[in-house]
């Protein structure tokens, strides 16, 4: 549906926001673009939607070059920006109808009604935008993006600063759209969100796509947890009785680190096995803590794997 080829963007101040990005989005999928703040997620979306001129490379939207055939390419795309940007004094109905007209589509009150109802905005259709809550405003932005019946919807950080209940509601809305055949690309820096929603996940870091993978494959990589045991007395070596647990000795023998997959049932029972073995060997544990790989760690490890 969307093919990005060799896309680079260097801003005037020399900042390289995108470096030779290749990416293909399949029709009908939910694609999550995952990356830390400043990784280039928004820049990539902006280039595809025509808000930023690329320095090199090209973007094809359903076979249309987004620069030379910008009318055809852009007509297929709906964009929900990250920031809540609205003309405060217009009504929900007017602003959504405006978006449809702006994209060159004739008036269709039935379609606008359908969009508003699906986003539970129908009751608020005559409200001015400034009177709406943050979550409502975000839904208005989604309604505006859907007003011209796009085939591809970009959601830039749709759930940033949104409470848990509303986040679930957003996810539900996105799923419904996918069921209607809309291709969805969403950016996020929450792993949880990508896990919940996406069919495929692309990881972007410092303007480079580090990997694109099926969600299930990626989640296995992300599921690692670490248990660190701080010992009273330093060890020179790992006792043979504990060798079956795959431990590593760190901190000059003061700590044992145990890696495991938190999602797996079996593994959790082996934590108690490990603790029992420690007891049996007579090691005294001063303190222990567990830690889940943070997104940043995952990026670092992903980048290192590649090199």
């Amino acid at each position, binding site marked *: 549906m969307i093919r990005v080829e060799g896309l680079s963007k260097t801003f005037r101040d020399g900042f390289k926001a995108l470096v030779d990005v290749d990416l293909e989005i399949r029709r009908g999928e939910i694609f999550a673009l995952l990356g830390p703040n400043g990784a280039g997620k928004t820049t990539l979306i902006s280039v595809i939607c025509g*808000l930023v001129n690329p320095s090199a490379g090209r973007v094809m939207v359903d076979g249309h070059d987004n620069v030379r055939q910008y009318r055809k390419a852009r007509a297929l795309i709906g964009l929900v920006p990250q920031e809540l940007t609205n003309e405060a004094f217009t009504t929900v109905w007017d602003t959504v109808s405006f978006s449809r007209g702006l994209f060159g589509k004739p008036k269709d009150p039935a379609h606008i009604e359908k969009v508003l109802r699906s986003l539970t905005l129908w009751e608020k259709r005559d409200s001015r935008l400034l009177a709406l809550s943050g979550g409502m405003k975000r839904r208005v932005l989604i309604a505006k993006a859907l007003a011209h019946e796009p085939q591809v919807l970009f959601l830039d950080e749709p759930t940033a600063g949104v409470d848990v209940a509303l986040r679930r509601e957003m996810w539900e809305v996105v799923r419904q759209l996918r069921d209607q055949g809309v291709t969805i690309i969403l950016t996020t820096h929450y792993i949880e969100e990508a896990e919940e929603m996406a069919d495929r996940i692309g990881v972007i870091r410092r303007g480079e796509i580090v990997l694109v993978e099926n969600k299930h494959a990626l989640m296995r990589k992300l599921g690692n947890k670490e248990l660190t045991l701080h010992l009273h007395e330093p060890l020179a070596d790992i006792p043979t009785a504990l060798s079956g647990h795959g431990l590593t000795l760190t901190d000059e023998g003061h700590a044992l680190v145990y890696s495991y997959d938190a999602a797996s049932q079996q593994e959790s029972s082996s934590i108690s096995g490990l603790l029992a073995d420690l007891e049996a060997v007579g090691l005294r544990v001063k303190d222990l803590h567990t830690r889940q790989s943070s997104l940043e760690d995952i990026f670092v490890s992903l980048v290192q794997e590649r090199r």
Partner: protein
Amino acid sequence: MNLKNLNLQSVKTLYLAEMARSLRTMLQSVISPVISTSLYFVVFGAAIGTRISEVDGVSYGAFIVPGLIMLMLLTQSVSNASFGIFFPRFSGSVYEILSAPMSYVEVVIGYVGAAASKSMILGLIVLATARLFVPYAIEHPLMMLVFLILTAITFSLLGFIIGIWADGFEKLQLVPLLVITPLTFLGGTFYSIDMLPPFWQTVTLANPVVYLVSGFRWSFYGISDVSPVVSLLMILLFLSAALAVLSWIFKSGYRLKP
């Protein structure tokens, strides 16, 4: 640019939305210019004007009518058009315009067309208001409209450029305050330039507003400081200059598309 390919639906939507925005602020956009113009007529026309003799055979009150309409037209065109594009840039909602399947020409027609329409409507309201204070005649009504339309479009384009250039509210006010208003007051709105000493008459000819006011006044009373043909050519020159700057802006993506 092939006009047949013009995306009329998009242009119409943008134009109507801009006009609707003006209607929402009807009170400040219509009442305040009418009041300020009325004040000019009371002070300059009625109070001071009665002590000033006729200018080129026209009573002073009537003499300033075209100038005041020009004053209104220039300031309103610039402020409408600059605010029209500045506000979406400021609020961020410009993303929608830029991501719409619209050409730049269409965007400009929408914004500038709406700004020019609004200032022309105001100009005509001021014209009607003036009638309450002084009698006047319009000798060349058709040319009056031509001057009105060309000036409104030209200065709306200028306002649009300012709205793209400005990166804050101060800059948005800067050009109207420091450039447009002084040039208008010194451009023969309240006097005929042959009332000035010879040296200043020459200096004044460098003021573009002189040509606008002079041409516009000619369409009313058949009197002018410079030939109406020169006035018309000058307006067309400003129009081309504004279009040239705009086309550079869009080509380079200046302030709109990084």
